């Protein structure tokens, strides 16, 4: 269980996190989503006690992180890959972590096997690819068999095989009743493994809902797409029935306020040939982009002038 309550974190005049409140519950995978620079990593660093909140509070397992008697057993933490000394082998890195909590070598070997690092365990972490570094970070998070896991961008840099592995791993961990909070700036990653999604932009909460609820918020959700040889009479007729119509390229109309059945009936009535007719469903990606559209900190140069 992770509770973030009215968390604000400022660095000088910059506000990284602004009054953020959310809860990650046991048995669920909570996706923590936001554009780069939205405050995800800052929030996570505050939750694990590396930084102090300017105001507000965070709790893990009902306690302040700094008050946990055995942090490694309570919370598995994987922050960015640069949390490992590059000159140390994977095995020694994990062993030193384990020794702080009196965890034996057998458990170290176990997490090495579990994360598929056996063949590289005696290599120095500095020689690792991004993907192997992520696996090492996850191995460290699993070491204490914690009830809560905090993973910052775990999918970043993994090969497709590794991505599948992470999805299965976090699902299994949640199924065992653990709390999993994992951040990403890629919506579709979370769509496939998160139960709930907390979306932030510029440090503020934009949405805290299930994946389904967020998809339903997409502008496209509930609309009907119809392609016809003769869009104009159909559009007039549809508007007459009270629907809203947005004409698009290639003879396509996007219709709201009418079902697929309604649109088909109207099309037959005004005698146009229907080439394509379907109910549109929004994607999580679209919902996310719409939510964060105003909150993107950095834009590609080409779109800078057109920032909404």
């Amino acid at each position, binding site marked *: 269980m992770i509770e973030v309550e009215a968390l604000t974190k400022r660095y000088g005049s910059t506000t990284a996190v602004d009054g953020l409140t959310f809860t990650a519950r046991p048995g669920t995978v909570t996706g923590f989503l936001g554009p780069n620079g939205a405050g995800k990593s800052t929030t996570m*660093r505050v939750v*694990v*006690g*590396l*930084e*102090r909140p300017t105001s507000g509070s965070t709790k893990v397992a009902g306690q302040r*992180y*700094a008050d*946990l*008697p*055995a*942090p*490694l*057993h309570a*919370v598995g*933490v994987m*922050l*960015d890959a*640069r*949390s*490992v*000394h*590059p*000159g*140390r*082998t994977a095995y*020694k*890195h994990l*062993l*030193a*972590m384990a*020794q*702080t*909590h*009196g*965890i034996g070598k057998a*458990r170290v070997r*176990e997490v090495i*096997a*579990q994360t*598929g690092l*056996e063949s590289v365990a005696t290599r120095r972490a500095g020689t690792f690819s991004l993907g192997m570094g992520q696996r090492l970070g996850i191995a*460290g998070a*699993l070491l*204490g*068999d914690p009830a809560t896991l905090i993973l910052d961008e775990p999918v970043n840099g993994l090969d497709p*095989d*590794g991505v599948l*592995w992470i999805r*299965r*791993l976090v699902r*299994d*961990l949640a199924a*065992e009743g653990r709390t999993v909070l994992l951040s990403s700036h890629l919506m579709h990653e979370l769509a496939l493994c998160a139960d709930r999604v907390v979306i932030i932009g510029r440090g503020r909460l934009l949405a805290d809902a299930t994946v389904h609820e967020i998809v339903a918020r997409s502008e496209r959700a509930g609309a009907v797409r119809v392609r016809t040889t003769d869009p104009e009479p159909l559009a007039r007729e549809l508007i007459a029935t009270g629907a809203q119509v947005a004409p698009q390229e290639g003879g396509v109309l996007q219709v709201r306020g009418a079902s697929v059945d309604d649109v088909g009936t109207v099309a037959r009535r005004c005698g146009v040939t229907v080439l394509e007719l379907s109910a549109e469903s929004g994607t999580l990606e679209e919902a996310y982009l719409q939510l964060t559209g105003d909150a993107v900190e950095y834009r590609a140069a080409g779109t800078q002038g057109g920032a909404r």
Partner: protein
Amino acid sequence: MSVTSTTPGTARAAAATRSGPTFVRLLAAEWTKLTSLRSPWWVAGVTVAVAAAITYLSAQASSGDPGFQPFDSLSSGLVLAQVGPLVLGVLAGAGEYRTGAFRTTFTLVPRRWPVLAAQTLVVAAFALGLGVLATVACVLGVLPAAASRDIPLDLTAGETPAVLLAMTLFVVGLALLGFALGVILRRTVPAMVTALVVVLLLPVMLTLAGEMASEPADPASFSSTGEGPGPITVPGMLLTFSPGGAAQEMTVPASYQPVAGSPDMSPLGGGLVLGGWVLVLLAATGVRLRTRDVR
């Protein structure tokens, strides 16, 4: 790559001992961390080799002098080899911060300062081993020159045991000074430069300044002091109480005259001054770790 999921059986096995960090555990972890890097071993090897080589060359060079005393050459190798423990300490102190490994360390031990204490002890222990080896290397370096003049080197006579002990502790003290500079500056290069300036450059400059200041400008005062140590000067005081000057004081036999313008300080006094500097820097680091974010 093979993929397995958590098995409830192993989860329970780990759950059997769910206690947190203790100081002994932190010592074990920090020892693993220090000794699992390559740099401490490299630095230690080079330090011992340089100590032996310089001592050997220095003793050989002065063995032709009529008044050659092998004992005087004993600590000559450390003049250059002292860079070794400094580098060792700086790398151990700044390494965590330079690489970001401190994030892992401090999430495991949110109280933070026990980690600093454990690291300090581990660096001291490693440096103690290095100090013993470097001192042995210095003794071995003197032997050929002593043998060539048929002067027996009695390690138990006079001030020799005290100097040997002081040489060993000198290595420990410099490693801790490097470590303290490393943890407070958090970056390798600034910490290294500071350490070298403080330990190598500053004492030379202060010695020269001290000699200039204590030159008998007033003949009357010169005659009144006679052969005794000259008046104590500001550069002399600074030298004695600077970390570098204090460190050098450690390896100078107690019976030797102090540098011009400096108060007479025993090796023990030098060691205490150096230890004081290390404690002040570590205390400042401890306070900062307690009260500030680590990013």
